[in-house]
């Protein structure tokens, strides 16, 4: 089948990146109309993925890929099942609308091209993330979404708040990314596979492993930070500093769901254990309640939506971890419905902001006449969010209650959490989708009129889909929710829920939720005041902690630097040599490897002994030298003595070289010393002398003992014999030393003469530099 040809999928995956490269050029030529053309890229990707619907709904999977680093068992490979496909369609579909919306929202902005480029970069990364089969690919795309998010949140980089929010999001999600990487390495180590598609069948082995819990915690660290679960939620509301299209796309519909995606993807592998079924619902539930409660307190449309997004993510995590097929079905339905209505509501909030100049709820009212189309979209989306019958949100809510109200005490607790969270979200849905449009017309900074088509097209399409999916639920189930639920549970599942209300506990709970929600909406002012009081009494939240942590970290590292790098060479050298001495001496004593006491050499010739004494005297003279001339002369003495020792013990080459080097050393030392008016005498306090001498003697003793130990053992003659045997036979040279230098180890010598050359250049540079500087000054 042509649709599954890997090349096309590859192109579809990379189309957003190509478009990201082209976007700035197109915008600079065509202005904001370019958005319509750029939107073709995600639209084409969307269409390509639509062609998989038939195959996937029939229970098949689409795979493909190319080898990347075969030696490391790495490949660029994708694996598309119901879960991936639903995400891919949401990403490309909503992405198309967002690009068009951005063209209108950022109209006339001088960096529109850059903005679209970042959006498309993110889109490509997110798309890659959800179809990745290999761990490494998943991780790379995961980090790429964090980076794209950083760029987009900080898009308005001239404001400090935007910079802070961007950095905060990057630090939190980046740290989570590292945690995820560690978790994936654990999974890899335990199971030996690097592909998600293979990993799915190894869940049981993994759960038996002692590394299950560490791996789980690390993976959750990645998922929870990305999906803004309590207590890592604080970056998401701050991310609202980004332009509204970003909030609608990344921070509600797609990126923040990456964590949920990961949990869903790994559900067959890691799920089903007590740890999974306790941690996920607990953190999800806490996030749900926290998000919904703080959301009520807000007056800014975007912030209200941001906190409900956090609450919804909590709900999704809770459902994913609940552990029953019904809960998974509910999560699937809610995920789709949420992406549609939240994307629409964010875009509505942006349109209202764009037309009236404010997002403050108390300042808005009576916009229904001025903005009828926007109002219609807002109303539809809000109804879906509130979970009214006929809407996709209703399906999700029915399924949630059907799943949670299973009867046991644990279920009752989570039902309560879901009820409270949902009721609050109903109230916020009405506050955002209804309140600005009804009631008295209020004075706004700008005179409102209907938004242009670019601004209402997205919300209208998404909101309409919310009702289409609700009414034609069998279609939704057949193509999206059933395959996706099957993928998460890892066995064929059919979602059957319809929008026609049927009597039972779930419906009763839905009605109850709605009633409380309307009640809270009616008393919104009071509820907000109550929440403000409560938050006030709780004191600063994790958002402030983050600031304290950052300053603390800076102070700590600066303090640490002052201790370990005080800027005094003496201390560095002292520490280095103490460590050298310890490294040499401690093993000798600890492992009882001290060399045997050597016998006094017999048959020592007079001239040999004489030069040893001369060398020793030279060294002592260098140590005690109080003026330049003594230092130079005594340095020469020890050098020439060493040269003679080489000669006496069968190394004429070394001897000649040492002679020449010593001569030249004395020459250049004299040349420099005559100009350098510095004293070679040393003024160290007595305590310093004792310390330095102790370290020096320890080092000298260490090297001496090590050498004595090693000469006490038999020499491995392998290399020497090799050179001996082949020097004349193959390399045609009788002087073995020279043959080694220029032939056997010629490459080494090439490197060494390069070093000699570089020191020559460095010396010239040092001397030239001064001429230049003097000339300037």
């Amino acid at each position, binding site marked *: 089948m042509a649709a599954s040809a890997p090349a096309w999928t590859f192109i579809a995956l990379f189309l957003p990146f190509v478009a990201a490269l082209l976007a700035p050029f197109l915008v600079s030529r065509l202005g904001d109309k370019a958005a319509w053309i750029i939107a073709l890229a995600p639209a084409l990707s969307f269409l390509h993925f639509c062609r998989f619907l038939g195959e996937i709904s029939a229970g098949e999977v689409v795979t493909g890929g190319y080898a990347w680093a075969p030696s490391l068992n790495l490949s660029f490979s994708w694996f598309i099942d119901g879960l991936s496909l639903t995400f891919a369609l949401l990403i490309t579909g909503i992405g198309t609308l967002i690009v068009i919306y951005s063209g209108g929202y950022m109209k006339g902005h001088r960096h529109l091209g850059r903005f679209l480029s970042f959006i498309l970069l993110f889109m490509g990364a997110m798309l890659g993330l959800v179809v990745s089969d290999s761990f490494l690919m998943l991780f790379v795309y995961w980090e790429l979404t964090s980076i794209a998010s950083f760029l987009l949140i900080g898009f308005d980089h001239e404001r400090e708040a935007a910079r802070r929010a961007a950095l905060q999001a990057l630090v939190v999600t980046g740290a989570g990314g590292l945690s995820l990487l560690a978790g994936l390495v654990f999974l890899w180590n335990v199971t030996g596979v690097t592909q998600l598609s293979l990993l799915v069948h190894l869940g049981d082995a993994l759960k038996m492993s002692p590394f299950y819990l560490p791996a789980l915690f690390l993976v959750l660290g990645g998922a929870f930070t990305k999906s803004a679960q309590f207590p890592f939620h604080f970056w998401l509301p701050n991310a609202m500093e980004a332009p509204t299209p970003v909030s609608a796309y990344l921070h509600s519909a797609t990126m923040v769901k990456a964590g949920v995606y990961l949990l869903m993807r790994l559900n067959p592998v890691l799920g089903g254990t007590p740890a999974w079924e306790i941690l996920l619902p607990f953190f999800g539930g806490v996030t749900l309640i926290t998000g919904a409660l703080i959301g009520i307190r807000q007056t800014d449309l975007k912030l209200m939506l941001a906190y409900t997004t956090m609450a919804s993510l909590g709900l999704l995590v809770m459902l994913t971890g609940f552990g029953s097929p019904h809960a998974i079905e509910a999560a699937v339905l809610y995920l789709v419905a949420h992406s549609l209505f939240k994307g629409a509501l964010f875009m509505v909030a942006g349109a209202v902001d764009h037309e009236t100049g404010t997002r403050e709820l108390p300042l808005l009212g009576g916009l229904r006449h001025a903005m009828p189309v926007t109002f219609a979209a807002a109303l539809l989306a809000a109804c879906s969010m509130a979970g009214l019958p006929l809407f996709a949100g209703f399906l999700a809510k029915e399924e949630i209650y059907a799943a949670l109200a299973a009867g046991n005490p644990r279920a009752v607790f989570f039902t309560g959490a879901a009820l409270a969270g949902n009721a609050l979200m109903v109230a916020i849905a009405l506050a955002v989708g209804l309140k600005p449009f009804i009631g008295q017309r209020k004075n706004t900074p700008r005179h409102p009129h209907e938004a242009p088509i670019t601004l209402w097209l997205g919300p209208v399409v998404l909101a309409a889909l919310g009702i289409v999916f609700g009414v034609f639920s069998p279609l939704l189930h057949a193509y999206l929710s059933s395959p996706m639920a099957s993928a998460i549970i890892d066995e064929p599942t059919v979602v059957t829920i319809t929008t026609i209300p049927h009597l039972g506990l779930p419906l009763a709970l839905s009605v109850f939720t709605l009633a409380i929600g309307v009640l809270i909406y009616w008393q919104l002012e009071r509820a907000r005041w109550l929440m403000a009081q409560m938050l006030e009494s709780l004191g600063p939240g994790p958002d402030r902690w983050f600031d304290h942590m950052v300053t603390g970290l800076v102070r700590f590292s600066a303090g640490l630097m002052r201790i370990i790098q005080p800027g005094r060479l003496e201390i560095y050298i002292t520490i280095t040599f103490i460590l050298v001495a310890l490294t040499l001496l401690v093993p000798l004593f600890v492992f009882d490897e001290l060399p045997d006491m050597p016998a006094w050499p017999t048959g020592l010739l007079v001239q040999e002994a004489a030069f040893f004494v001369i060398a020793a005297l030279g060294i002592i003279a260098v140590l005690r030298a109080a003026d330049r001339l003594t230092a130079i002369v005594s340095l020469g003495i020890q050098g020439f003595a060493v040269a003679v020792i080489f000669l006496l013990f069968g190394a004429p080459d070394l001897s000649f070289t040492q002679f020449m080097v010593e001569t030249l050393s004395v020459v250049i030392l004299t040349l420099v010393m005559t100009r350098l008016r510095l004293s070679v005498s040393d003024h160290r306090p007595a305590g310093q002398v004792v310390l330095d001498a102790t370290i020096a003697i320890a080092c000298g003793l260490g090297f001496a003992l090590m050498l004595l130990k090693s000469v006490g053992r038999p020499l491995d003659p392998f290399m020497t014999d090799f050179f001996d045997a082949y020097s004349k036979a193959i390399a045609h040279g009788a*002087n073995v030393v020279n043959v080694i230098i*220029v032939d056997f180890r*010629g490459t080494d010598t090439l490197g060494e003469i390069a070093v000699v050359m570089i020191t020559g250049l460095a010396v010239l540079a040092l001397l030239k530099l001064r001429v230049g500087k003097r000339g300037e000054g």
Partner: protein
Amino acid sequence: MNTLILRTAAPVITALMLLFSVFVLLRGHNEPGGGFIGGLIAASALAIFGIAHGPGAVQRAIRFHPMAIAGAGLFLATMSGLASLIAGVPFMSGLWVYPDILGVEVPLSTVMSFDIGVYLVVVGAITAIALALETEPENGSAHDEGSR
């Protein structure tokens, strides 16, 4: 150090040392010697000449900038290594030819050209350092002459 005796003797000493250095270089493969030692002897010779007659004189005598000599040496050494690639053997494998010159068989090899490269690098780099140091820093023009 600029005595008349030194100034008179320096050219002779330098010439002899240079000749000796080439001798040490060429016999190095079979007797004590080689590129490093030869190079150091030649560099000392030039340094002595520099002390006696000033770096400018050395500069004029060797015509090229010392670092250019060093660079040529490094180039020669690298090329000697690369020659084996053309012959289809691993990098730095020695290649030998035995042409008959005036009735005497002369062994020539990439190993020898490599050693000559080593010699040139050592002579060039160390002479450059010595000349640069011999140049009086206050005298800008002399310094330039010595190191350019």
